């Protein structure tokens, strides 16, 4: 049986070049499906990855309870100080609490080469912010000085938006700021931000309170987190919710990744149906053009199963080729491409890189095989069922 399968399959494959046109149709159809699917999912994966790599589980972000994003939150000055001094917050060698009360506003900046404004997040941070977020490093220039209108800019923000290179000046409200440094923080969401000294930002933007407090937990375990959370919720002075950073940032990705994934799967599903019809067509005509040959094989004693299997193998191989080419194209054109969009959860721009991961490529290949299997099955069965006498009469 196995030898029969191998023999028929090899024979099929050997005369594939004669059916090149029709076979290419199958391949191109599947290239389209897999290419589109992988590219769109790479978009959502890149966005999700950027938010998922933001924050560490031993840090918490504190917002006004009821607020799901920093922009809509508000933490009065006095409360921010009290929150930083809670027992559950870690302290540095000098005994200062590792907590940074932060201001978050949006500033309008055009993308490079464009003119219309985008909501770019502008974060005012306290000096401890750099000790708390130790993943952040300056890649060009230096940190801003305290009390001066200087900013440092995330690597991604500086790539996406105009006028954000070291030494350039930007005007917001009634203030001019100088860009003194570019920072990176492992491709996370902070790289889309502009950072300045909280006190300076507060006076420039005429704010009275902060938006959030980010702090390092004294005890990063579940118990330590719960203790801090309970301390805050028990204290009647506060109306504050405490979230672990990863939990907070994962939530920010929800709406947009959901939308992009929905779009990707819907479009790919329709394209897959179309490609399946194409594959069916091609395999039916492949079978039709070989019906005499198949009937001859049957007549000299080859079984029905090897015929079915050989047709299926041909369809699957074509599909696999299409899937591989589609995935490769998506990888070549999309992987690492940068773009920025408005995150609906935070109402601010997030810049990210498209990521074509191995999981996505495998997913693309399995879609391709699915289409190939669906497109090959019925023609294969028809080939096997064809009565030998009828088929031979076609000669």
């Amino acid at each position, binding site marked *: 049986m196995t030898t029969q399968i191998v023999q028929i399959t090899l024979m099929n494959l050997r005369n594939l070049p004669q059916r090149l046109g029709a076979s290419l149709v199958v391949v191109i*159809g599947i290239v389209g499906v897999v290419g589109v699917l992988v590219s769109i999912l790479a978009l959502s994966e890149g966005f999700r990855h950027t938010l998922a790599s933001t924050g560490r589980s031993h840090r918490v972000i504190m917002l006004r309870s009821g607020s799901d994003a920093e922009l809509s939150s508000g933490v009065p000055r006095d409360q921010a100080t009290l929150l930083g001094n809670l027992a559950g917050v870690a302290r540095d060698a000098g005994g200062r609490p590792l907590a940074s009360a932060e201001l978050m506003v949006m500033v309008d900046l055009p993308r490079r080469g464009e003119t219309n404004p985008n909501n770019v997040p502008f974060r005012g941070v306290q000096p401890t912010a750099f000790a708390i977020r130790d993943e952040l490093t300056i890649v060009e220039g230096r940190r801003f000085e305290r009390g001066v209108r200087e900013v440092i800019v995330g690597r991604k923000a500086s790539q996406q938006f105009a006028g954000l290179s070291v030494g350039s000046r930007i005007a917001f409200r009634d203030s001019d700021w100088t860009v003194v440094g570019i920072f990176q923080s492992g491709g996370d969401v902070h790289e889309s931000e502009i950072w300045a000294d909280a006190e300076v930002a507060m006076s420039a933007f005429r704010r009275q309170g902060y938006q959030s407090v980010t702090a390092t937990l004294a005890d990063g375990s579940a118990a330590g987190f719960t203790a801090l959370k309970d301390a805050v919720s028990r204290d009647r002075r506060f109306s504050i919710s405490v979230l672990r950073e990863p939990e907070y940032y994962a939530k920010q990705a929800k709406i947009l990744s959901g939308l992009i994934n929905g779009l990707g799967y819907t*479009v790919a599903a329709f394209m897959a149906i179309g490609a399946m019809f194409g594959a069916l*067509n091609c395999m039916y005509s492949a079978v039709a053009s070989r019906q005499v040959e198949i009937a001859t094989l049957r007549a000299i004693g080859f079984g029905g199963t090897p015929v079915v299997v050989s047709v299926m193998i041909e369809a699957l191989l074509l599909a696999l080729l299409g899937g591989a080419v589609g995935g490769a194209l998506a990888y070549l054109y999309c992987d690492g491409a940068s773009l920025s969009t408005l995150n609906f959860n935070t109402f601010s721009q997030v810049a990210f890189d498209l990521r074509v991961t191995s999981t996505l490529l495998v997913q693309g290949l399995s879609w391709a095989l699915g289409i190939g299997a669906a497109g090959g099955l019925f023609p294969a069965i028809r080939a096997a069922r064809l009565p030998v006498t009828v088929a031979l009469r076609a000669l």
Partner: protein
Amino acid sequence: MRYLPLLWAGLFRKKTRTILTLLSVIVAFLLFGLLQAVKVAFESGADTADAKRLLTTARYSIIETLPISYLRRIEQMPGVVGVAYAEWFGAKYQNESNAFPVFAVDPGRYLDAYPEFTIPRDQRQAFAKTRTGAVAGKRLADRFGWKLGQKLPISSEIHPKANGDLNWEFDLVGILDAEDPAVRGNTDVVLIGAEYFDEARQTGKGRTGWYIERIADPAQAKTISAEIDKLFMNSPDETKTQPEKEFAVGFAKQIGDMGALVTRILAAVFFTILILTGNIMAQSIRERTAELAILKTVGFSDGKATALVLAEAVLLLFMGGGLGMVMAAALLPPLNGATGGRFPPLFVSLGTCLIGAGIALTLALAVGLPPALRARRLRIVDALAGRR
């Protein structure tokens, strides 16, 4: 017309093959209809923008607010016939952030600024008279099952009441709608009275989010915008005024180039369809070389034979394309019902139909011309002798 049966017979010479091809074409155009609807909805902000409307926001960021005292000063500008204002409430409903936008507005002014919204006269009056009154878009009301006269409990993520409470309650006194499906998406809002809101809130009193100006002459939009901004230049709250369309385009651009994304996907789809149907057409005509020769023998001219083959391609693509578009149009209303108000309404616009027809024609020519020319060049003797 009298060749239709001949065309039909030619097309369905091999039933399975043609039906499968037709199905791929249908799916392609169905996808085209759906994606194009998304694109149209995405750009509808700009398309439904009223050229007689300007928007004034804070100069450096749309999240900043402006003093309410600007109202009188803008109103006195020559060329401005009406001014309305609105403030972002930051709604959270049933624990979902921004489930829908809620604006605190002056009822009369706001509804005057948007004449394309329809609301029964008595409901409009009730909204103006009820301090805690609210009106909601019809699609939202349908989605959440709201009834006129009921209490509407909505939390704010941004604005606490004087006692620090973020939970607000309003009385639903009116339902907004619009006749144009493209405008209907703009009614997916809840409007609340600014007077009560401003009085009851803890912070930000005496300020509003943005102003909406109606002007008499759209040609003056740029001049008046500049004049308004000049009025507040060098004040603590500088403004940025722009025609509504520019604002909408700018906002859509913040999200990214949706149009380009859709175009790229569709290019991949139609390229595939081109290859697929092209191959099928070529194959089908090759098989019928002898038949075509016979047609020519019985007196069909070269031109007629060409036209016959080309017409077959046109028929295939227009049938598939038409069916696909009809299916898209049929699928969208239940889809809108299911998402009710979470997305703008999707519909197949006339423009989409025309683009679809254009694509179908282009594809038909692209796949039909090569075999059609082959049919034209066909020499009867060679064809019948089996010499290709």
